[in-house]
């Protein structure tokens, strides 16, 4: 039974359904993933943007406030006042009162030397006339410096205000507390992986970054490209290899660039969720599809099997019908010659008197043969008359039958033939088998058929045994031969009509089929014993007919 077409079909269906259901699922999944991550990124960028702007304002304000303080101080006090002993210190404390923002305070004269100083460093003897901040302050009057090392060797930046003009000008310089400032700048930081710092127009850190890099080192950013007046958000890789979103905003007055950055959110979670959903979805869909397909295919196969069985049955029936019709036609054709033979031989027998028989050495043989010819015609008639079905006329004719007697008679029909063929027939009949109600003629036909088959099966020198035994109310008769037996692949066809293993012309294949039908009709059975060995063993069970 081939189920190859169904395998192909099921494969094709599986592929189609899976594609049709999984492809949209994946497309949808990826779309969601893309949307989520995109949305996430846009959100991040937007936050950074806002943060940068606000923070820049805060920082700008802070610096403006510090500068104002120094300016006010310069305007409100004279040089003499400020240079008095302890005065600067008082002022510094005052300035730092609310919030500590200044590290030191110093008055530097036009010549570049400190006039007064309060702070942690020893700077009194140092000259600043060459320093950038000094020169710039002299020019601009108010100046906020970039971060520089200066004499103290520590990164810092200053707010300086000039009072007066050359040669009487003096500068009040305040150093901003870097820690405080850095804190302020860093307050823009969004998360643990974020950072906020300032770089100057040359790209050098003005406040220390949290991760790689140090103050006054190059930050790896080209500030020149970045437009002034609005936030630029860029997706970049930091010198130490982190992928970040960076928001850049110029603090125009100071010429500083505020950088607020955030590491790009890992898409790990989103990816993980999407992958998990897709995997689960795929698994469920695939499972369902394959399960349903298998179910369906099994249905198909079962139906196919049923249909095939039905077809086989129908074909078998059709064969039987057509064979039956053919056989009927054949039977008719046979019956006429048979009738002629019977009558011709019968006439010879009628005319054969004792004188004729004695007149020739073969006389007995002639008479015997004539009689036998008619017996065979009878036998053939029996077969053709019962060929297909049974008519009203052919219903069993009940006698009280002596099985053993019937067997002996049957044997007598074929005795000569057996001798002629060199086959030894043994009758092993249980004595005293009671009479039983059955149809003698039809039983005889069955026995004749089986004995005939047995004789055909064995070659010269073979043996056939006919055995009868009581079997309850009935009898069991077996015909055993030591011929080749029935091949296993023929066993379940042996009672089929027209099944024969003989060469064409040697057997009609009807004998066993008819015998089988007869036994069924009489209420017994006929079977081939599976391991009677060495040859074939046929067993006839004769049951007495019921009332």
């Amino acid at each position, binding site marked *: 039974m081939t189920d190859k077409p169904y395998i192909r079909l099921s494969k094709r269906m599986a592929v189609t359904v899976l594609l049709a259901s999984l492809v949209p699922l994946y497309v949808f999944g990826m779309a969601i993933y893309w949307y989520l991550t995109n949305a996430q990124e846009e959100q991040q960028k937007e936050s950074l943007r806002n943060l940068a702007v606000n923070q820049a304002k805060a920082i700008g304000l802070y610096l403006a406030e510090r500068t104002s303080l120094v300016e006010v101080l310069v305007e409100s006090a004279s040089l003499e006042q400020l240079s008095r002993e302890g005065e600067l210190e008082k002022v510094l404390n005052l300035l730092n009162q609310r919030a500590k923002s200044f590290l030191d305070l110093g008055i530097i004269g036009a010549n570049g030397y400190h006039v007064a100083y309060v702070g942690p460093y020893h700077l009194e003897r140092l000259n600043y006339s060459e320093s950038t901040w000094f020169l710039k302050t002299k020019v601009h009057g108010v100046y906020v410096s970039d971060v520089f090392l200066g004499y103290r060797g520590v990164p810092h930046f200053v707010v300086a205000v000039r009072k007066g003009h050359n040669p009487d000008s003096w500068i009040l310089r305040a150093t901003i507390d870097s820690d405080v400032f850095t804190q302020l700048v860093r307050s823009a930081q969004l998360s643990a992986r974020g950072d906020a710092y300032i770089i100057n127009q040359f790209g050098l850190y003005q406040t220390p970054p949290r991760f790689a890099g140090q103050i006054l080192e190059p930050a790896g950013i080209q500030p020149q490209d970045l437009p002034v007046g609005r936030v630029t958000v860029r997706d970049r890789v930091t010198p130490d290899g982190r992928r970040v979103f960076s928001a850049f905003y110029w603090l125009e007055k100071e010429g500083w660039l505020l950088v607020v950055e955030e590491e790009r959110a890992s898409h790990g979670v989103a990816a993980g969720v999407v992958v998990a959903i897709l995997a689960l979805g795929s698994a469920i869909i695939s499972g369902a599809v394959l399960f349903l397909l298998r179910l369906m295919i099994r249905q198909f196969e079962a139906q196919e099997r049923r249909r095939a069985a039905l077809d086989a049955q129908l074909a078998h029936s059709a064969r039987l019908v057509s064979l039956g019709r053919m056989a009927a036609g054949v039977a008719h054709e046979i019956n*006429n010659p048979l009738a002629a033979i019977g*009558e*011709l031989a*019968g*006439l010879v027998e009628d005319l054969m008197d004792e004188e004729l028989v004695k007149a020739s050495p073969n006389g007995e043989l002639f008479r015997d043969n004539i009689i036998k010819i008619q017996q065979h015609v009878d036998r053939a008639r029996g077969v053709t*008359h019962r060929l297909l079905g049974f008519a009203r006329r052919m219903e069993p004719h009940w006698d009280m039958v002596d099985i053993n007697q019937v067997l002996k008679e049957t044997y007598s029909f074929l005795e000569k033939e057996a001798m002629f063929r060199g086959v030894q027939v043994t009758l092993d009949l249980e004595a005293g088998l009671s009479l039983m109600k059955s149809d003698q003629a039809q039983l005889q036909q069955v026995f004749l058929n089986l004995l005939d088959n047995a004789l055909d099966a064995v070659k010269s020198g073979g043996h056939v045994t006919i055995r009868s035994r009581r079997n309850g109310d009935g009898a069991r008769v077996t015909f055993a031969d030591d011929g080749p037996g029935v091949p296993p692949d023929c066993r379940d066809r042996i009672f089929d009509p027209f099944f024969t293993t003989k060469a064409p012309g040697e057997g009609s294949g009807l004998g066993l089929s008819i015998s089988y039908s007869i036994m069924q009709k009489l209420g017994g059975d006929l079977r081939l014993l599976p391991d009677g060995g060495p040859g074939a063993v046929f067993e006839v069970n004769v049951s007495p007919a019921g009332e």
Partner: protein
Amino acid sequence: MDEIRVLVVDDETDFLRSVVKRLNLRKIQADGVESGEAAMEYLAGRGVDVVVLDIKMPGRDGLWALDEIRKKYPGVEVIVLTGHTAVEVDADRAWSRRGAFDCLIKPVRIEALIEKIRAAYEKQRGVKA
């Protein structure tokens, strides 16, 4: 007892001749013809008690003869012979509808035929009487 007069109608020559001879050997006055027409001719000239008629279906010859005999010689009983097996015969039963006494299937044992002939003769005599 009178000998029963029988006419056998069959186109199988061997069969016909043998049956007629065998009937004669058994004290039945039998004769044979080989066709329906011949049978009608014979019956026109001679008295017959029983006709044994081969139907040879599906040919029409036998049935036609049956009809003719029953029509023209209603006193003559007809026994129909056929080579068909019992099933077809029973299913058709044309012979019965057409008034034949009985039907026998070839090949037929001579004793059975004679039995049927005697029975037909009894019937015929019964009618006559």
